[in-house]
Protein backbone atom coordinates (compact mmCIF):
# COMPACT_ATOMS: atom_id res chain seq x y z
CA UNK A 1 0.00 0.00 0.00
CA UNK A 2 2.77 2.37 1.02
CA UNK A 3 4.79 1.41 -2.01
CA UNK A 4 1.80 2.08 -4.24
CA UNK A 5 1.24 5.48 -2.62
CA UNK A 6 4.89 6.42 -2.94
CA UNK A 7 4.90 5.35 -6.57
CA UNK A 8 1.80 7.45 -7.31
CA UNK A 9 3.37 10.51 -5.71
CA UNK A 10 6.63 9.97 -7.59
CA UNK A 11 4.79 9.53 -10.89
CA UNK A 12 2.72 12.66 -10.19
CA UNK A 13 5.85 14.68 -9.47
CA UNK A 14 7.59 13.36 -12.55
CA UNK A 15 4.60 14.20 -14.75
CA UNK A 16 4.44 17.69 -13.21
CA UNK A 17 8.14 18.23 -13.80
CA UNK A 18 7.74 17.12 -17.41
CA UNK A 19 4.70 19.39 -17.90
CA UNK A 20 6.43 22.38 -16.36
CA UNK A 21 9.70 21.83 -18.16
CA UNK A 22 7.84 21.65 -21.47
CA UNK A 23 6.16 25.00 -20.87
CA UNK A 24 7.83 27.72 -22.88
CA UNK A 25 9.04 30.56 -20.66
CA UNK A 26 8.68 34.10 -22.05
CA UNK A 27 12.31 34.90 -21.19
CA UNK A 28 13.65 35.15 -24.73
CA UNK A 29 10.68 37.10 -26.06
CA UNK A 30 10.90 39.61 -23.23
CA UNK A 31 14.63 39.98 -23.74
CA UNK A 32 14.06 40.67 -27.44
CA UNK A 33 11.28 43.15 -26.63
CA UNK A 34 13.49 44.95 -24.11
CA UNK A 35 16.36 45.16 -26.58
CA UNK A 36 14.02 46.44 -29.30
CA UNK A 37 12.79 49.11 -26.89
CA UNK A 38 16.35 50.18 -26.11
CA UNK A 39 17.18 50.42 -29.81
CA UNK A 40 13.97 52.37 -30.45
CA UNK A 41 14.83 54.80 -27.66
CA UNK A 42 18.30 55.25 -29.11
CA UNK A 43 16.53 56.29 -32.32
CA UNK A 44 14.54 58.77 -30.17
CA UNK A 45 11.29 56.95 -30.87
CA UNK A 46 10.04 58.29 -27.53
CA UNK A 47 10.16 61.74 -29.18
CA UNK A 48 9.42 61.19 -32.86
CA UNK A 49 7.13 58.18 -32.62
CA UNK A 50 5.77 58.84 -29.18
CA UNK A 51 2.44 57.01 -29.58
CA UNK A 52 3.79 53.72 -30.94
CA UNK A 53 6.74 53.78 -28.55
CA UNK A 54 4.40 54.25 -25.58
CA UNK A 55 2.26 51.35 -26.77
CA UNK A 56 5.38 49.21 -26.98
CA UNK A 57 6.42 50.16 -23.43
CA UNK A 58 2.91 49.44 -22.16
CA UNK A 59 2.96 45.99 -23.78
CA UNK A 60 6.33 45.18 -22.25
CA UNK A 61 5.08 46.34 -18.84
CA UNK A 62 1.89 44.28 -19.26
CA UNK A 63 3.99 41.26 -20.11
CA UNK A 64 6.03 41.70 -16.94
CA UNK A 65 2.94 42.26 -14.75
CA UNK A 66 1.32 39.16 -16.25
CA UNK A 67 4.44 37.08 -15.79
CA UNK A 68 4.59 38.06 -12.15
CA UNK A 69 0.89 37.20 -11.80
CA UNK A 70 1.34 33.83 -13.48
CA UNK A 71 4.35 33.07 -11.30
CA UNK A 72 2.24 33.63 -8.22
CA UNK A 73 -0.10 30.82 -9.34
CA UNK A 74 0.49 27.13 -8.65
CA UNK A 75 3.22 25.97 -10.95
CA UNK A 76 1.11 23.55 -12.90
CA UNK A 77 -1.54 26.15 -13.64
CA UNK A 78 0.77 28.81 -15.07
CA UNK A 79 0.19 29.96 -18.61
CA UNK A 80 2.72 32.15 -20.39
CA UNK A 81 0.98 32.44 -23.76
CA UNK A 82 -0.44 35.89 -23.11
CA UNK A 83 2.93 37.12 -21.84
CA UNK A 84 4.66 35.85 -24.95
CA UNK A 85 2.05 37.58 -27.09
CA UNK A 86 2.55 40.84 -25.20
CA UNK A 87 6.33 40.55 -25.55
CA UNK A 88 6.13 39.82 -29.26
CA UNK A 89 3.73 42.71 -29.82
CA UNK A 90 5.99 44.98 -27.76
CA UNK A 91 8.99 44.05 -29.90
CA UNK A 92 7.02 44.59 -33.10
CA UNK A 93 5.75 47.98 -31.91
CA UNK A 94 9.24 49.02 -30.78
CA UNK A 95 10.60 48.19 -34.23
CA UNK A 96 7.74 50.11 -35.85
CA UNK A 97 8.39 53.06 -33.54
CA UNK A 98 12.08 53.00 -34.42
CA UNK A 99 11.38 53.00 -38.14
CA UNK A 100 8.81 55.76 -37.84
CA UNK A 101 11.15 57.78 -35.66
CA UNK A 102 14.00 57.53 -38.14
CA UNK A 103 11.72 58.59 -40.98
CA UNK A 104 10.06 61.38 -39.04
CA UNK A 105 13.29 62.80 -37.65
CA UNK A 106 14.89 62.72 -41.11
CA UNK A 107 11.87 64.51 -42.56
CA UNK A 108 11.80 66.99 -39.71
CA UNK A 109 15.50 67.66 -40.16
CA UNK A 110 14.89 68.32 -43.85
CA UNK A 111 11.90 70.53 -43.07
CA UNK A 112 13.82 72.51 -40.49
CA UNK A 113 16.76 72.96 -42.87
CA UNK A 114 14.39 74.10 -45.62
CA UNK A 115 12.77 76.42 -43.10
CA UNK A 116 16.21 77.87 -42.26
CA UNK A 117 16.72 78.68 -45.93
CA UNK A 118 13.28 80.24 -46.22
CA UNK A 119 13.81 82.24 -43.04
CA UNK A 120 17.26 83.37 -44.15
CA UNK A 121 15.66 84.62 -47.39
CA UNK A 122 13.11 86.60 -45.41
CA UNK A 123 15.84 88.13 -43.27
CA UNK A 124 17.81 88.94 -46.42
CA UNK A 125 14.69 90.54 -47.92
CA UNK A 126 14.39 92.75 -44.86
CA UNK A 127 18.06 93.70 -45.05
CA UNK A 128 17.80 94.53 -48.73
CA UNK A 129 14.51 96.37 -48.82
CA UNK A 130 13.44 97.51 -45.41
CA UNK A 131 16.52 97.99 -43.26
CA UNK A 132 17.02 101.62 -44.24
CA UNK A 133 13.37 102.60 -44.03
CA UNK A 134 12.21 104.77 -41.12
CA UNK A 135 10.56 101.78 -39.47
CA UNK A 136 8.83 101.79 -36.09
CA UNK A 137 10.89 100.30 -33.24
CA UNK A 138 8.48 97.35 -32.94
CA UNK A 139 9.33 96.28 -36.50
CA UNK A 140 13.01 96.72 -35.87
CA UNK A 141 12.87 94.66 -32.68
CA UNK A 142 10.77 91.93 -34.28
CA UNK A 143 13.38 91.53 -37.01
CA UNK A 144 16.20 91.24 -34.46
CA UNK A 145 14.26 88.79 -32.31
CA UNK A 146 13.67 86.62 -35.36
CA UNK A 147 17.43 86.51 -35.96
CA UNK A 148 18.04 85.45 -32.36
CA UNK A 149 15.43 82.69 -32.50
CA UNK A 150 16.91 81.51 -35.79
CA UNK A 151 20.34 81.25 -34.12
CA UNK A 152 18.82 79.32 -31.20
CA UNK A 153 17.00 77.07 -33.62
CA UNK A 154 20.20 76.34 -35.53
CA UNK A 155 22.01 75.46 -32.28
CA UNK A 156 19.17 73.10 -31.31
CA UNK A 157 19.28 71.55 -34.78
CA UNK A 158 23.03 71.02 -34.56
CA UNK A 159 22.57 69.30 -31.18
CA UNK A 160 19.99 66.98 -32.78
CA UNK A 161 17.12 68.53 -30.83
CA UNK A 162 14.89 68.75 -33.86
CA UNK A 163 11.63 69.35 -32.02
CA UNK A 164 13.19 72.25 -30.12
CA UNK A 165 14.64 73.53 -33.38
CA UNK A 166 11.18 73.41 -34.92
CA UNK A 167 9.58 75.31 -32.03
CA UNK A 168 12.30 77.97 -32.11
CA UNK A 169 12.12 78.24 -35.87
CA UNK A 170 8.39 78.82 -35.68
CA UNK A 171 8.96 81.63 -33.19
CA UNK A 172 11.57 83.13 -35.51
CA UNK A 173 9.12 82.88 -38.40
CA UNK A 174 6.38 84.70 -36.47
CA UNK A 175 8.73 87.60 -35.74
CA UNK A 176 10.26 87.81 -39.21
CA UNK A 177 6.81 87.70 -40.81
CA UNK A 178 5.60 90.44 -38.50
CA UNK A 179 8.60 92.62 -39.39
CA UNK A 180 8.40 91.95 -43.13
CA UNK A 181 4.63 92.34 -43.39
CA UNK A 182 4.69 95.65 -41.50
CA UNK A 183 7.68 96.98 -43.43
CA UNK A 184 6.31 95.66 -46.73
CA UNK A 185 2.97 97.36 -46.15
CA UNK A 186 4.75 100.60 -45.34
CA UNK A 187 6.72 100.39 -48.58
CA UNK A 188 3.72 99.39 -50.71
CA UNK A 189 1.60 102.20 -49.25
CA UNK A 190 4.40 104.63 -49.96
CA UNK A 191 4.68 103.52 -53.57
CA UNK A 192 0.98 104.12 -54.19
CA UNK A 193 2.13 107.60 -55.24
CA UNK A 194 4.61 106.24 -57.76
CA UNK A 195 2.67 107.25 -60.90
CA UNK A 196 2.52 110.81 -59.54
CA UNK A 197 6.26 110.74 -58.84
CA UNK A 198 6.94 109.32 -62.30
CA UNK A 199 5.00 112.20 -63.90
CA UNK A 200 6.83 114.75 -61.76
CA UNK A 201 10.18 113.22 -62.73
CA UNK A 202 9.27 113.06 -66.43
CA UNK A 203 8.13 116.71 -66.34
CA UNK A 204 11.37 117.72 -64.64
CA UNK A 205 13.49 115.86 -67.22
CA UNK A 206 11.40 117.37 -70.02
CA UNK A 207 11.90 120.82 -68.51
CA UNK A 208 15.67 120.32 -68.76
CA UNK A 209 15.49 119.67 -72.50
CA UNK A 210 15.75 123.35 -73.43
CA UNK A 211 19.22 123.38 -71.84
CA UNK A 212 18.03 124.41 -68.40
CA UNK A 213 19.49 122.67 -65.42
CA UNK A 214 16.94 120.85 -63.29
CA UNK A 215 17.51 119.21 -59.93
CA UNK A 216 15.71 115.91 -59.43
CA UNK A 217 15.84 114.35 -55.96
CA UNK A 218 15.02 110.65 -55.52
CA UNK A 219 14.32 109.99 -51.82
CA UNK A 220 14.32 106.18 -51.93
CA UNK A 221 17.56 106.07 -53.93
CA UNK A 222 19.00 108.83 -51.71
CA UNK A 223 20.33 110.54 -54.83
CA UNK A 224 20.22 114.06 -56.19
CA UNK A 225 20.51 114.31 -59.99
CA UNK A 226 21.22 117.39 -62.04
CA UNK A 227 19.64 117.13 -65.48
CA UNK A 228 20.43 119.22 -68.50
CA UNK A 229 19.10 118.66 -72.00
CA UNK A 230 17.31 115.55 -70.79
CA UNK A 231 20.52 113.98 -69.52
CA UNK A 232 22.01 113.48 -66.11
CA UNK A 233 25.06 115.67 -65.75
CA UNK A 234 25.66 115.15 -62.01
CA UNK A 235 24.66 112.59 -59.37
CA UNK A 236 25.24 113.15 -55.66
CA UNK A 237 24.48 111.04 -52.61
CA UNK A 238 21.80 112.75 -50.55
CA UNK A 239 20.59 112.54 -46.98
CA UNK A 240 17.25 113.60 -45.56
CA UNK A 241 15.38 113.80 -42.29
CA UNK A 242 14.76 110.73 -40.10
CA UNK A 243 11.15 110.72 -41.29
CA UNK A 244 12.23 111.00 -44.91
CA UNK A 245 9.58 108.73 -46.40
CA UNK A 246 6.79 111.05 -45.39
CA UNK A 247 5.80 114.11 -47.40
CA UNK A 248 6.44 117.23 -45.36
CA UNK A 249 3.22 118.60 -43.90
CA UNK A 250 4.08 120.65 -40.85
CA UNK A 251 6.82 122.15 -38.74
CA UNK A 252 8.99 119.66 -36.96
CA UNK A 253 7.85 116.50 -38.74
CA UNK A 254 11.41 115.86 -40.00
CA UNK A 255 9.94 114.93 -43.37
CA UNK A 256 11.24 115.97 -46.78
CA UNK A 257 8.64 117.51 -49.09
CA UNK A 258 7.71 116.00 -52.46
CA UNK A 259 6.76 118.11 -55.46
CA UNK A 260 8.04 120.89 -57.69
CA UNK A 261 10.01 123.71 -56.11
CA UNK A 262 12.46 126.40 -57.16
CA UNK A 263 15.64 127.74 -55.66
CA UNK A 264 14.82 131.04 -54.09
CA UNK A 265 18.09 131.92 -52.44
CA UNK A 266 21.73 130.86 -52.62
CA UNK A 267 23.45 131.05 -49.26
CA UNK A 268 27.23 131.37 -49.38
CA UNK A 269 29.50 130.26 -46.56
CA UNK A 270 28.90 132.49 -43.58
CA UNK A 271 25.22 132.83 -44.38
CA UNK A 272 24.40 129.29 -43.33
CA UNK A 273 25.62 126.90 -40.66
CA UNK A 274 25.60 124.08 -43.23
CA UNK A 275 28.59 125.11 -45.36
CA UNK A 276 26.49 126.38 -48.30
CA UNK A 277 22.76 126.18 -48.92
CA UNK A 278 20.14 126.51 -51.62
CA UNK A 279 16.82 127.57 -50.14
CA UNK A 280 13.73 126.27 -51.96
CA UNK A 281 10.22 127.67 -51.98
CA UNK A 282 8.60 125.16 -49.66
CA UNK A 283 5.70 125.45 -48.99
CA UNK A 284 4.46 125.85 -52.55
CA UNK A 285 0.83 126.52 -53.42
CA UNK A 286 -0.03 122.83 -53.48
CA UNK A 287 1.55 122.29 -50.04
CA UNK A 288 -0.46 125.19 -48.64
CA UNK A 289 -3.76 123.80 -49.99
CA UNK A 290 -2.99 120.31 -48.62
CA UNK A 291 -1.99 121.76 -45.24
CA UNK A 292 -5.20 123.80 -45.01
CA UNK A 293 -7.35 120.78 -45.95
CA UNK A 294 -5.69 118.52 -43.41
CA UNK A 295 -5.97 121.13 -40.73
CA UNK A 296 -9.65 121.55 -41.52
CA UNK A 297 -10.17 117.79 -41.22
CA UNK A 298 -8.35 117.80 -37.93
CA UNK A 299 -5.53 115.65 -39.30
CA UNK A 300 -3.03 118.34 -38.35
CA UNK A 301 -3.19 120.12 -35.01
CA UNK A 302 -4.69 123.61 -35.11
CA UNK A 303 -1.57 125.08 -33.56
CA UNK A 304 0.83 123.45 -36.06
CA UNK A 305 2.70 125.50 -38.63
CA UNK A 306 3.40 124.35 -42.17
CA UNK A 307 7.16 124.74 -41.77
CA UNK A 308 9.70 126.52 -43.94
CA UNK A 309 13.41 126.86 -44.66
CA UNK A 310 13.75 123.66 -46.62
CA UNK A 311 17.16 123.73 -48.25
CA UNK A 312 19.68 121.70 -50.14
CA UNK A 313 22.74 122.17 -47.97
CA UNK A 314 26.16 120.86 -47.02
CA UNK A 315 27.49 118.92 -44.02
CA UNK A 316 26.16 115.72 -45.53
CA UNK A 317 28.00 112.46 -45.97
CA UNK A 318 27.14 111.40 -42.44
CA UNK A 319 25.66 108.25 -43.83
CA UNK A 320 22.30 108.60 -42.17
CA UNK A 321 19.17 110.70 -42.39
CA UNK A 322 19.93 113.48 -39.98
CA UNK A 323 18.45 116.72 -41.33
CA UNK A 324 15.18 118.25 -40.26
CA UNK A 325 13.71 117.57 -43.68
CA UNK A 326 16.33 119.32 -45.86
CA UNK A 327 18.47 117.61 -48.49
CA UNK A 328 22.01 117.15 -47.16
CA UNK A 329 24.98 116.80 -49.50
CA UNK A 330 28.70 116.38 -48.85
CA UNK A 331 30.44 119.74 -48.79
CA UNK A 332 32.43 119.09 -51.97
CA UNK A 333 29.23 118.05 -53.77
CA UNK A 334 27.50 121.12 -52.39
CA UNK A 335 30.31 123.32 -53.75
CA UNK A 336 29.90 121.71 -57.16
CA UNK A 337 26.12 122.04 -57.18
CA UNK A 338 26.32 125.60 -55.87
CA UNK A 339 28.49 126.56 -58.86
CA UNK A 340 26.20 124.73 -61.26
CA UNK A 341 22.75 126.14 -60.42
CA UNK A 342 21.26 129.51 -59.75
CA UNK A 343 18.16 131.12 -58.31
CA UNK A 344 15.01 129.91 -60.02
CA UNK A 345 16.43 126.47 -60.82
CA UNK A 346 13.68 123.88 -60.67
CA UNK A 347 13.96 121.33 -57.84
CA UNK A 348 11.70 118.30 -58.15
CA UNK A 349 11.60 115.95 -55.20
CA UNK A 350 10.00 112.53 -55.62
CA UNK A 351 9.69 109.41 -53.53
CA UNK A 352 11.21 107.20 -56.20
CA UNK A 353 11.81 107.42 -59.91
CA UNK A 354 11.91 103.65 -60.24
CA UNK A 355 8.79 101.57 -59.56
CA UNK A 356 8.59 99.25 -56.56
CA UNK A 357 9.18 96.21 -58.76
CA UNK A 358 12.61 97.56 -59.67
CA UNK A 359 13.42 98.67 -56.13
CA UNK A 360 12.46 95.27 -54.77
CA UNK A 361 14.51 93.56 -57.50
CA UNK A 362 11.62 91.22 -58.12
CA UNK A 363 11.69 90.01 -54.52
CA UNK A 364 8.30 88.86 -53.35
CA UNK A 365 7.07 90.35 -50.09
Amino acid at each position, binding site marked *: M*IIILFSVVTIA*ISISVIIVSQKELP*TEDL*KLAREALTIAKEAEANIYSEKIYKESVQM*YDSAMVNWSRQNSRFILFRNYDRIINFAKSSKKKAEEAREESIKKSANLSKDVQAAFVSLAKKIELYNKLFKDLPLPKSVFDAHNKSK*MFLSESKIAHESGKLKDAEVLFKKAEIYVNHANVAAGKMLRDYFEDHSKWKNLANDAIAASRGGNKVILVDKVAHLLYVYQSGKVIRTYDAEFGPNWMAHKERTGDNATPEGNYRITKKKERGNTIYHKALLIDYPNAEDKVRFAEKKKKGLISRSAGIGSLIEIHGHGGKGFNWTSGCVGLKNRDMDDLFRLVGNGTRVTIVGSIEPLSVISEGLDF
Partner: protein
Amino acid sequence: MKSKLIIAIAAMGVAVLFSSCAKVPQTEIDSAQAAVQEVKDSGADLYVPEAYSALVDSMKSANESVEVAKAKWFPNYSKAKEQLAVVSQMSTDIKAKAETRKVELKAEVEAMIVEVKALVEENKALIAKAPRGKEGKAALEAISSDLAVAETTVTEVEALLANGDLIGSNDKIKAAKEKATSIKAELEAAIAAKGGK
Protein backbone atom coordinates in the same frame (compact mmCIF):
# COMPACT_ATOMS: atom_id res chain seq x y z
CA MET B 1 4.34 2.87 12.99
CA LYS B 2 6.89 2.36 10.25
CA SER B 3 4.30 2.98 7.55
CA LYS B 4 3.17 6.24 9.26
CA LEU B 5 6.75 7.45 9.29
CA ILE B 6 7.19 6.74 5.56
CA ILE B 7 3.95 8.60 4.79
CA ALA B 8 5.11 11.58 6.84
CA ILE B 9 8.46 11.67 5.04
CA ALA B 10 6.74 11.41 1.64
CA ALA B 11 4.33 14.21 2.54
CA MET B 12 7.20 16.42 3.68
CA GLY B 13 9.07 15.66 0.48
CA VAL B 14 6.08 16.68 -1.60
CA ALA B 15 5.63 19.81 0.51
CA VAL B 16 9.26 20.74 0.02
CA LEU B 17 9.03 20.04 -3.69
CA PHE B 18 5.99 22.26 -4.11
CA SER B 19 7.23 25.10 -2.04
CA SER B 20 9.84 27.69 -2.86
CA CYS B 21 13.32 27.06 -1.76
CA ALA B 22 14.23 30.77 -1.78
CA LYS B 23 12.42 33.99 -1.19
CA VAL B 24 12.00 36.76 -3.77
CA PRO B 25 14.74 39.36 -3.06
CA GLN B 26 12.12 42.06 -2.54
CA THR B 27 14.40 44.29 -0.46
CA GLU B 28 17.01 44.29 -3.20
CA ILE B 29 14.36 44.92 -5.87
CA ASP B 30 12.86 47.82 -3.93
CA SER B 31 16.24 49.26 -3.20
CA ALA B 32 17.37 49.05 -6.85
CA GLN B 33 14.05 50.50 -8.02
CA ALA B 34 14.39 53.40 -5.58
CA ALA B 35 17.97 53.97 -6.71
CA VAL B 36 16.87 54.12 -10.36
CA GLN B 37 14.13 56.59 -9.45
CA GLU B 38 16.67 58.73 -7.58
CA VAL B 39 18.88 58.73 -10.65
CA LYS B 40 15.95 59.88 -12.78
CA ASP B 41 15.09 62.59 -10.25
CA SER B 42 18.66 63.82 -10.45
CA GLY B 43 18.04 64.58 -14.13
CA ALA B 44 20.29 61.83 -15.44
CA ASP B 45 17.88 61.16 -18.29
CA LEU B 46 18.67 64.69 -19.51
CA TYR B 47 22.33 65.09 -18.59
CA VAL B 48 23.67 61.55 -19.17
CA PRO B 49 20.90 60.03 -21.32
CA GLU B 50 22.87 57.07 -22.66
CA ALA B 51 24.02 55.95 -19.22
CA TYR B 52 20.50 56.39 -17.87
CA SER B 53 19.08 54.32 -20.71
CA ALA B 54 21.57 51.53 -19.95
CA LEU B 55 20.56 51.66 -16.28
CA VAL B 56 16.85 51.31 -17.09
CA ASP B 57 17.65 48.38 -19.38
CA SER B 58 19.66 46.71 -16.60
CA MET B 59 16.80 47.16 -14.15
CA LYS B 60 14.38 45.58 -16.60
CA SER B 61 16.80 42.72 -17.18
CA ALA B 62 17.07 42.17 -13.41
CA ASN B 63 13.28 42.12 -13.11
CA GLU B 64 13.14 39.53 -15.88
CA SER B 65 15.73 37.43 -14.03
CA VAL B 66 13.57 37.57 -10.90
CA GLU B 67 10.61 36.23 -12.87
CA VAL B 68 12.75 33.56 -14.54
CA ALA B 69 13.79 32.38 -11.09
CA LYS B 70 10.23 32.54 -9.81
CA ALA B 71 9.07 30.38 -12.71
CA LYS B 72 11.28 27.48 -11.61
CA TRP B 73 10.51 24.56 -9.29
CA PHE B 74 13.49 25.51 -7.22
CA PRO B 75 13.85 29.29 -7.50
CA ASN B 76 17.37 30.55 -7.33
CA TYR B 77 17.65 34.31 -7.16
CA SER B 78 21.42 34.57 -7.03
CA LYS B 79 21.69 35.84 -10.66
CA ALA B 80 18.88 38.35 -10.11
CA LYS B 81 20.50 39.50 -6.87
CA GLU B 82 23.79 40.01 -8.66
CA GLN B 83 22.05 42.02 -11.35
CA LEU B 84 20.20 44.10 -8.76
CA ALA B 85 23.47 44.80 -6.98
CA VAL B 86 24.94 45.95 -10.31
CA VAL B 87 21.89 48.19 -10.85
CA SER B 88 22.38 49.76 -7.41
CA GLN B 89 26.06 50.35 -8.10
CA MET B 90 25.32 51.72 -11.57
CA SER B 91 22.74 54.06 -10.05
CA THR B 92 25.28 55.50 -7.67
CA ASP B 93 27.79 56.02 -10.49
CA ILE B 94 25.29 57.49 -12.94
CA LYS B 95 23.83 59.80 -10.35
CA ALA B 96 27.33 61.05 -9.60
CA LYS B 97 27.99 61.47 -13.34
CA ALA B 98 24.75 63.42 -13.76
CA GLU B 99 25.64 65.67 -10.82
CA THR B 100 29.12 66.25 -12.27
CA ARG B 101 27.67 67.05 -15.70
CA LYS B 102 25.22 69.47 -14.10
CA VAL B 103 27.99 71.22 -12.22
CA GLU B 104 30.09 71.37 -15.41
CA LEU B 105 27.17 72.65 -17.47
CA LYS B 106 26.27 75.24 -14.86
CA ALA B 107 29.85 76.43 -14.78
CA GLU B 108 29.93 76.55 -18.60
CA VAL B 109 26.71 78.58 -18.73
CA GLU B 110 27.86 80.92 -15.97
CA ALA B 111 31.19 81.43 -17.73
CA MET B 112 29.38 82.13 -20.99
CA ILE B 113 27.07 84.61 -19.25
CA VAL B 114 30.14 86.49 -18.00
CA GLU B 115 31.66 86.28 -21.48
CA VAL B 116 28.51 87.52 -23.22
CA LYS B 117 28.05 90.33 -20.70
CA ALA B 118 31.64 91.42 -21.34
CA LEU B 119 31.04 91.21 -25.09
CA VAL B 120 27.91 93.33 -24.75
CA GLU B 121 29.88 95.98 -22.85
CA GLU B 122 32.72 95.82 -25.41
CA ASN B 123 30.18 96.20 -28.20
CA LYS B 124 28.60 99.19 -26.51
CA ALA B 125 32.03 100.83 -26.34
CA LEU B 126 32.66 99.94 -29.98
CA ILE B 127 29.30 101.41 -31.02
CA ALA B 128 30.31 104.67 -29.36
CA LYS B 129 33.60 104.60 -31.30
CA ALA B 130 32.20 103.26 -34.55
CA PRO B 131 32.15 105.47 -37.61
CA ARG B 132 28.81 106.37 -39.08
CA GLY B 133 30.15 104.50 -42.06
CA LYS B 134 28.46 103.79 -45.30
CA GLU B 135 25.24 102.70 -43.75
CA GLY B 136 25.54 105.24 -41.01
CA LYS B 137 23.51 105.79 -37.95
CA ALA B 138 20.68 103.57 -39.13
CA ALA B 139 23.09 100.64 -39.25
CA LEU B 140 24.38 101.47 -35.80
CA GLU B 141 20.82 101.70 -34.53
CA ALA B 142 20.16 98.28 -36.03
CA ILE B 143 23.29 96.93 -34.35
CA SER B 144 22.28 98.49 -31.03
CA SER B 145 18.87 96.89 -31.30
CA ASP B 146 20.51 93.55 -32.12
CA LEU B 147 22.74 93.98 -29.10
CA ALA B 148 19.72 94.78 -26.94
CA VAL B 149 18.18 91.45 -28.00
CA ALA B 150 21.42 89.66 -26.99
CA GLU B 151 21.35 91.51 -23.66
CA THR B 152 17.72 90.52 -23.06
CA THR B 153 18.66 86.93 -23.85
CA VAL B 154 21.30 87.01 -21.11
CA THR B 155 18.62 88.08 -18.62
CA GLU B 156 16.38 85.24 -19.84
CA VAL B 157 19.28 82.79 -19.47
CA GLU B 158 19.88 83.92 -15.90
CA ALA B 159 16.21 83.27 -15.13
CA LEU B 160 16.38 79.82 -16.74
CA LEU B 161 19.52 79.03 -14.78
CA ALA B 162 17.85 80.10 -11.55
CA ASN B 163 15.02 77.66 -12.38
CA GLY B 164 17.56 74.89 -12.92
CA ASP B 165 17.00 74.64 -16.68
CA LEU B 166 20.65 74.08 -17.54
CA ILE B 167 20.12 72.67 -21.02
CA GLY B 168 17.72 75.43 -22.07
CA SER B 169 20.01 78.10 -20.67
CA ASN B 170 23.03 76.53 -22.37
CA ASP B 171 21.40 76.63 -25.82
CA LYS B 172 20.16 80.17 -25.31
CA ILE B 173 23.45 81.57 -24.06
CA LYS B 174 25.26 79.95 -27.01
CA ALA B 175 22.96 81.84 -29.37
CA ALA B 176 23.52 85.07 -27.45
CA LYS B 177 27.27 84.54 -27.57
CA GLU B 178 27.13 83.90 -31.30
CA LYS B 179 25.13 87.09 -31.75
CA ALA B 180 27.38 89.25 -29.56
CA THR B 181 30.49 87.84 -31.27
CA SER B 182 29.14 88.56 -34.74
CA ILE B 183 28.19 92.10 -33.69
CA LYS B 184 31.71 92.64 -32.36
CA ALA B 185 33.23 91.39 -35.63
CA GLU B 186 30.93 93.67 -37.60
CA LEU B 187 31.84 96.70 -35.51
CA GLU B 188 35.56 95.94 -35.54
CA ALA B 189 35.48 95.53 -39.31
CA ALA B 190 33.72 98.88 -39.67
CA ILE B 191 36.24 100.59 -37.38
CA ALA B 192 39.19 98.93 -39.13
CA ALA B 193 37.83 99.92 -42.54
CA LYS B 194 37.60 103.52 -41.44
CA GLY B 195 41.08 103.43 -40.00
CA GLY B 196 42.41 102.06 -43.27
CA LYS B 197 40.92 104.85 -45.40
